[in-house]
């Protein structure tokens, strides 16, 4: 038999290919370990430094590795239940001082015990705007004059003046970091050695792919976490995320497009759960530019829109609730009479335009490419009847953000996620606030005085009344922006896990994701 002299070459090439593929694939880790709960997210974790907390998704990861000082609760209430590092908080109104007692016997992942020294150090890191890491949330700490350690497990926070949203807007951001380790090794060394006190320890962060954690075996809350391993996994395409959930490759989806979410109604293995979010989804108007500096023009736009129609066409009536208010309906700071505010009235819109001296308006809405565009197209069509002609300028996020903050956008459509306090939804309309530009450059001294008074008011009912008044000025009188709806965040999960009922709560900072340690296999 004649053997071709080419055969060795072909065999060699084939062998190189097989070895190459095997070698390359061997470089990469494969499937999840057993006893791993996988959470699918549409965006990725970028920075795990709890002082920076760059975005919502990074906070999801931080919440697994660190315990918070306090938990979120409706305005003015102290919540030190569950996984909080604080055991007790006492507030002395006359002395403007919070005294915080810490839980004893909490240890960082590298073995050091957490003391008040670590908590004070964490506060100082947030408040320092000179040295790295500079926190984008530093303004939230402005009401604090000083933080002092008064015992091994006790510290005091002294305020400049009475500031009631401190817990829900400031203390909630504090996840204590280990002072000694960071002082000895520096922040750069701390990157990647994320020692917290939380139920999960950091294993690895592979950018644009996942963050992996394993159980902290010495966690101070006995019996937790229930599940040994945790992986936060990123999906660039929501359809893939949805299919992965159906297949059981992931157990929980952090959010999902409403249409894809509804498609899961008929899937037996998936529970279509959703979590109310404290958020404003608005069209903001640039108060520095004509014609939107005129309140009548702003109101004309509001009267020209029928949000129920928009939600029916481009949203989901089960997930989106049309409202002009910025705090949820069941929140004590929600004002009465806002349900019917600015119901569509084309004739009224035309009258208002006439009063402002305009026959018609031509303007542009800046919008980040995504699902909001569908809603805006319906709005664009609706307002034409009132002689308001809108163009849509679809931009990717970076350009959108830069143009809006530079004041180049006449109108823009986006969202603003707050916390449990009314102040977190209202503060950006203070003219002095760092992100007032995002709130339309709104500037009204009366509003600022009422909001400041509300934040200083110790009596709960009186404080809520003042928040109502602030919203009356902002939304009813000035129509500073047009809030479109409140949203329930679609967060479906696989039947293989059980999530405690109490964590589906609108006032929790991140809903069930903040408490993965308490999830169980079904």
């Amino acid at each position, binding site marked *: 038999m004649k053997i071709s002299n080419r055969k060795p070459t072909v065999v060699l090439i084939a062998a190189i*290919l097989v070895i*190459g*593929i*095997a070698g*390359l*694939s061997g*470089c*990469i*880790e*494969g*499937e999840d370990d057993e006893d791993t709960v996988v959470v699918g997210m549409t965006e*990725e974790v*970028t*920075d795990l430094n709890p002082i*920076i907390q*760059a*975005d919502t998704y990074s906070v999801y990861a931080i919440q697994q590795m660190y315990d918070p000082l306090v938990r979120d609760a409706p305005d003015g209430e102290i919540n030190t239940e569950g996984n909080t590092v604080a055991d007790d908080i006492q507030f002395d109104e006359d002395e403007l001082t919070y005294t915080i007692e810490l839980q004893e016997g909490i240890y960082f992942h590298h073995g050091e015990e957490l003391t008040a020294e670590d908590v004070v150090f964490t506060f100082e890191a947030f408040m320092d*705007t*000179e040295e*790295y890491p*500079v*926190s*984008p*949330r*530093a*303004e939230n700490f402005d009401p604090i004059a000083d933080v002092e350690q008064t015992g091994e497990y006790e510290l005091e926070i002294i305020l400049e003046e009475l500031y009631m949203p401190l817990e829900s807007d400031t203390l909630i951001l504090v996840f204590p970091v280990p002072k000694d380790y960071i002082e000895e090794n520096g922040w750069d060394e701390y*990157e990647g050695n994320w020692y917290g006190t939380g139920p999960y320890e950091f294993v690895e*962060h*592979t*950018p*644009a*792919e*996942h963050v992996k954690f394993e159980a902290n075996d010495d966690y101070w809350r006995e019996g937790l976490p229930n599940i040994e391993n945790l992986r936060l*996994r*990123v*999906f*660039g*395409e929501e*359809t*893939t*995320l949805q*299919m*992965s959930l*159906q*297949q059981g*490759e992931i157990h929980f989806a952090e959010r999902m497009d409403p249409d894809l979410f509804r498609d899961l109604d008929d899937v037996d293995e998936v529970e279509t759960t959703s979590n109310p979010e404290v958020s404003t989804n608005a069209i903001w108007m640039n108060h520095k530019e004509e014609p939107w500096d005129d309140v009548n023009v702003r109101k004309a736009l509001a009267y020209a829109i029928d949000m129920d129609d928009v939600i029916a066409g481009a949203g989901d009536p089960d997930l989106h609730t049309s409202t002009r208010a910025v705090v949820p309906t069941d929140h004590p700071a929600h004002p009465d009479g806002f349900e019917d505010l600015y119901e569509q009235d084309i004739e009224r819109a035309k009258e208002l335009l006439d009063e402002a001296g305009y026959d018609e308006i031509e303007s542009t809405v800046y919008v980040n490419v995504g699902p909001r565009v569908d809603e805006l197209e319906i709005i664009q069509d609706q307002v034409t009847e009132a002689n308001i002609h809108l163009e849509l300028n679809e931009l*990717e*996020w*970076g*350009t959108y*953000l*830069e*143009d809006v*903050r530079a004041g180049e956008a006449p109108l823009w459509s*986006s969202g*603003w996620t707050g916390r449990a306090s009314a102040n977190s939804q209202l503060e*950006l309309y203070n003219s002095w606030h*760092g*992100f007032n530009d*995002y709130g339309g450059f709104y500037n009204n001294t009366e509003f600022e005085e009422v909001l400041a008074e509300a934040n200083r008011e110790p009596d709960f009912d009186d404080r809520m009344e003042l928040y109502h008044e602030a919203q009356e000025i902002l939304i009813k009188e000035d129509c500073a922006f047009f809030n479109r709806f409140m949203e329930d965040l679609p967060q479906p999960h696989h039947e293989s896990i059980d999530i405690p009922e109490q964590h589906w709560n609108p006032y929790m900072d991140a809903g069930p994701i903040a408490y993965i340690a308490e999830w169980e296999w079904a």
Partner: protein
Amino acid sequence: MKIREYIESKRARFIVTRIVKSIPVFFLASIIIFLIMHLSPGDPAEIMLGAGATEEAIESIQQRLGLDQPLYRQYLNYMSGVFQGDWGVSIRYNQPVLELIRTRMPLTLLLMGSGLIISVIMGITMGVLGALNPNSIFDYSSTVMALFWRSIPSFWLGILFLYVFALEFGWFPIGGWQGPISLVLPMMVIGLRLQAIIARLTRSQMLDVLTKDYIKSAKTKGLKRKAVIIKHGLRNALIPVVTVIALRVPWLFGGAVITETVFAYPGMGSMLVRGVLSRDFPLVQGIVLVICISAIIANLIADVSYTYIDPRIDIDSQRKG
């Protein structure tokens, strides 16, 4: 051939000349990438910190990243770092760019390489068979299939494959990397689209070559049909095909970006998308430089391979050309 003789050979000199010529291309590409990234709107510090970031926090990040320096200085710093093995630190991930590329590159190379192999094997086979049986049912159906694969956007094809083969049949994992099985569907998406081009080109080249006089004379000399087709026909038809394959290397990276996003495949492409959206200058520059170098190497390989496929091609004439 001894090493010295090889070094002095025309082919070796040709390769060295091509590499030297690639250096200005590399620098030009690096300047263009740098300018595009830095002149496009959007501040990485602002994007990183979100809408609620204070001016102080933004300035602090800008200083830390060196973004407050003049553009030319940023470029010089960057390029001097590149040649010293320091490709900078990713703004978004705060990790060395070279390390990020090193960890993601294997999966992307695996995807591109396997997609390329599939496309070449399938494309050339379909093209040759189509040319040998023109206007047959096979020829028509392969033409229709080629048009089909080319016409379908890769993201849609990816979702379709996921739905049918992963979700409905359960043959493959939905996304991510769960071992070599995760490679199959994305590889098919990339491979099928490229094979359509190769098949069409091979077919038309083969049809042209098979009418040449030297094919007729080879047949009349009594050579076996297989030898005529492969040695005299395919070898001559392959030159434009090799050119197209080489030119498609950057396209393969582009295809990998979309395919990796759909399949949640943890390669370099999906990271590039996130890098662009967050204006992560060092990361995007690093990845695009890698793509640029790959394209230069692919073209070099194509040029050299011409001389192997068809020894009549004179290297000197290529050099002059």
